């Protein structure tokens, strides 16, 4: 198994080769493919517009099968065998951590589109940057503020939380829970379930039995769908229901039987945002794919933008430790304009923004928080489902 | 008292009392036969004595030591060896290996000693010669015919060097010429001082071989004594031999 002889290599006028490993199969394959579409759209867009540093960019995408062992091997391969100039991150916290380790060992800049959990940032990686507005803990910040600001009479008194046992999903629910608890909203149910749970009957029974005013799901996708259906089967009608990531999925309304009205979700991205590059992105992407981009594509595109900004500012894009160091240092000191807004990071790579809050209003998912970005009024209490 | 003694042995399976309060003493150093109709509990009796099943009640002693309910391998270590009614060998081990597996390793250190010690292999070959299948030493047991497997099992039991040997129907399914050969071997070993306890339905074998016969019926002994006496016992005639 001799690896291919090194081709391309550093510098020169050849294309800039960017290595990525993504979960194209396995548990995370769906969002993984979304990220792939985003990366590819970004590369095409860059190439159509004269490339980076005047060089074309070329993606090498490997499939890590949603497996942590594989993702490390993939970056090992990209960096050593394929001799890529730059790397982009994979999808999901679970894969980002082992991947970032490899990148760090070889001194590579590691900008990633989907490692939002707190754990990603306390591993001591100085080469890592999360290319989205907020870490998991902060996804619900605007919602927390809004709830706390409600008049005493209508403000929810009790809350039920159910979170998947996954660093990201748990992080989102915990973030909201901590803030609400501090403000006096009693936690009456706090359930954590394994990622492969398919039967939510008894979790739903607990929540329904608690008659909590609001229900919050720290969810990925399928679990939110199952949980909502199970809650409906028990005729539980909360005043407010929020779930991370799932409701933004285009298939969500159909999956839960169209009873979406009033469901909330944080999102890092909206195609309607008026950040300078966003319109360009949405137009380009819609032209290519016939549909507007979602969060996964946007995060990938953002990753591209962040790296491109560093490359342009540093004037280099090669695997040498010096160049990679320059890129990393530049990102630590600067803000980057992206499709999800201006991003800047602390020393551990945490972005310093917050997520928008969306809600299904009139059958469509709209931004309701923060006030300055809203497309519709927050509906509270939510109608029955 | 020397030898194997069983008192009040009882074993039930569900509603069936396979062995029912059986008390038997075997003549140490002799060839004992255990006969009785099908289902009278002979095999179960063997299984209880050798620790393959736990008796519900009763005491088994060997040289005055209580061995009731001990693990099968411990009872084997006491010097009691047995064969099975449906002969059992290690199918994918060769004939020699079948015998080597019966060597008792002793301490842990000795357990890690090579299995093919020359002394052991020599003894195995000698035993195979004694039962007349030395030419099959390197043949896997599953390739042997039924009778040859039977002889191999016997050799394996002997390899463990037991003082008391329990044989369950050694003649069943074996060619008459071979039966005679086994009989000769049993006598030789008995002359060396080994005690035999043989379950057998072949009356010719029982009568010609044994010194002492115990007759079982419904899980307990109904008669015992020298072969000629037992053969004439009306109880035995009624229960077993058929009048």
């Amino acid at each position: 198994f001799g690896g291919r002889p090194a081709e391309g290599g550093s510098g020169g006028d050849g294309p800039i080769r960017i290595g990525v490993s993504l979960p194209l199969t396995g548990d995370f394959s769906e969002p993984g493919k979304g990220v792939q579409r985003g990366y590819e759209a970004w590369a095409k867009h860059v190439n159509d517009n004269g490339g980076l540093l005047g060089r074309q960019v070329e993606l090498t995408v490997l499939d890590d099968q949603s497996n942590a062992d594989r993702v490390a091997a993939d970056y090992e391969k990209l960096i050593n065998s394929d001799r890529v100039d730059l790397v982009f991150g994979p999808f999901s916290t679970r894969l980002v951590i082992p991947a970032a380790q490899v990148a760090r060992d070889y001194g590579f800049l590691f900008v990633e589109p989907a490692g939002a959990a707190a754990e990603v940032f306390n591993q001591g990686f100085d080469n890592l940057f999360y290319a989205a507005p907020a870490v998991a803990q902060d996804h619900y910040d605007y919602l927390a503020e809004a709830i706390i600001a409600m008049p005493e009479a209508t403000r929810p008194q009790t809350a039920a939380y159910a979170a998947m046992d996954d660093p990201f999903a748990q992080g989102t629910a915990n973030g909201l829970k901590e803030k609400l608890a501090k403000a006096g909203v009693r936690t009456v149910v706090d359930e954590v379930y394994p990622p492969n749970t398919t039967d939510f009957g008894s979790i739903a029974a607990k929540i329904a039995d608690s008659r909590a005013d609001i229900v919050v799901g720290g969810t990925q996708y399928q679990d939110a769908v199952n949980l909502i259906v199970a809650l409906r089967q028990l005729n539980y009608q909360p005043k407010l229901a929020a779930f991370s990531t799932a409701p933004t999925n285009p298939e969500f309304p159909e999956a839960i039987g169209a009873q979406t009205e009033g469901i909330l979700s944080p999102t890092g991205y909206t195609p309607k945002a008026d950040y300078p590059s966003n319109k360009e992105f949405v137009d380009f992407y819609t032209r290519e794919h016939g549909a507007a981009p979602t969060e996964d594509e946007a995060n990938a595109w953002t990753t591209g933008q962040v790296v491109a900004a560093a490359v342009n500012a540093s004037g280099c894009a090669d695997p040498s430790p010096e160049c990679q160091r320059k890129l990393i240092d530049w990102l630590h000191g600067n803000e980057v304009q992206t499709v999800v807004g201006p991003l800047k990071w602390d020393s551990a790579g945490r972005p310093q923004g917050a997520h928008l809050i969306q809600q299904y209003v009139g059958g469509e998912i709209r931004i309701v928080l923060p006030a300055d970005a809203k497309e519709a009024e927050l509906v509270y209490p939510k109608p029955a489902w | 008292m020397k030898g194997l003694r069983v008192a009040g042995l009882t074993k039930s399976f569900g509603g069936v009392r396979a062995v029912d309060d059986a008390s038997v003493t075997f003549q140490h150093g002799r060839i004992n036969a255990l006969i009785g109709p099908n289902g009278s509990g002979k095999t179960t009796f063997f299984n209880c004595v050798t620790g393959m099943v736990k008796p519900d009640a009763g005491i088994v002693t060997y040289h005055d030591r209580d061995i009731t309910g001990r693990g099968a391998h411990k009872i084997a270590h006491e010097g009691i060896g047995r064969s099975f009614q449906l002969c059992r060998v290690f199918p994918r081990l060769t004939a020699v290996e079948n015998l080597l597996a019966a060597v008792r390793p002793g301490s842990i250190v000795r357990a890690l000693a090579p299995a093919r010690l020359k002394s052991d292999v020599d003894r195995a070959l000698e035993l195979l010669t004694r039962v007349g299948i030395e030419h099959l030493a390197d043949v896997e047991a599953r390739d042997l015919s039924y009778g040859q497997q039977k002889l191999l099992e016997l050799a394996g039991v002997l390899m463990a060097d037991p003082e008391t040997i329990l044989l369950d129907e050694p003649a069943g399914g074996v060619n008459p010429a071979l039966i005679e050969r086994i009989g000769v071997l049993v006598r030789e070993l008995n002359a060396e001082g080994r005690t035999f306890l043989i379950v057998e339905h072949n009356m010719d074998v029982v009568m010609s071989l044994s010194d002492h016969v115990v007759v079982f019926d419904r899980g307990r002994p109904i008669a015992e004594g020298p072969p000629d006496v037992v053969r004439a016992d009306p109880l035995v005639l009624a229960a077993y031999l058929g009048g």
Partner: protein
Amino acid sequence: MPILLCWRLTLAADLLELVDVEAGYGRAALVLRGLTVRVPPASVVCLVGPNGAGKSTVLKVASGLLAPRAGRIVLDGRDVTGRGPQSLLGAGLSHVLQGHSVFPEMTVGENVLLGAYTVRDKARVAERVDFVRTLFPVVGSRWDALAGALSGGQQKQVEFARSLMVSPRVVLLDEPSMGLDPKATATVFEQITRMRDAGTAVLLVEQNARRALEIADQGCVLDLGRVHIAGPAQALLTNPRLGDLYLGRRP
């Protein structure tokens, strides 16, 4: 080495004939090396021989469990070589295996009733059940027990009882008396005689050789896959050459 056929004097056509059969297992060497056996109706032909001679193999070839590599099997004048046991059973041939072949996790009753698997006539089945229950008391008394929980000899009795559920024209019996107590052995041999008297052709393999030859009409001594000596059973019994080698010393 003398290669004789199982010779006979009867005039009636043979019910079962194995002609020049060669057979073996898998890729291994031949077990049967050109062997001919004939079984006329209303007679018992007894096969004896040392362990591993190929006796069981003869029966397996005859009942279609094992396809011969050469030779012919003729049942009632028709060539049935290569046909499976199911079709031979339909043609009136049944085979009782050596060793233990009860269905251990089914009850004794289920085992016996399976003997009549091919019989549709319920009344007839009921009648046979009554018959075997009286013949072998254990079948009746342990009707609902799992067959695997019976003692070795009891299982053999159930097996034989199971084979009596049909009345075929040819019966192959492989050591039916193995492990049986004297009473049950007597019952089995008596049943074999009765079958013969009712016109059935019986091919019997027995290690209880003298006892078997006493009730047999013809005898064949098999060794190394060939017929060694054959002739009327009485002649074999009195043949001094066979005593020590195959039949065991006279008691």
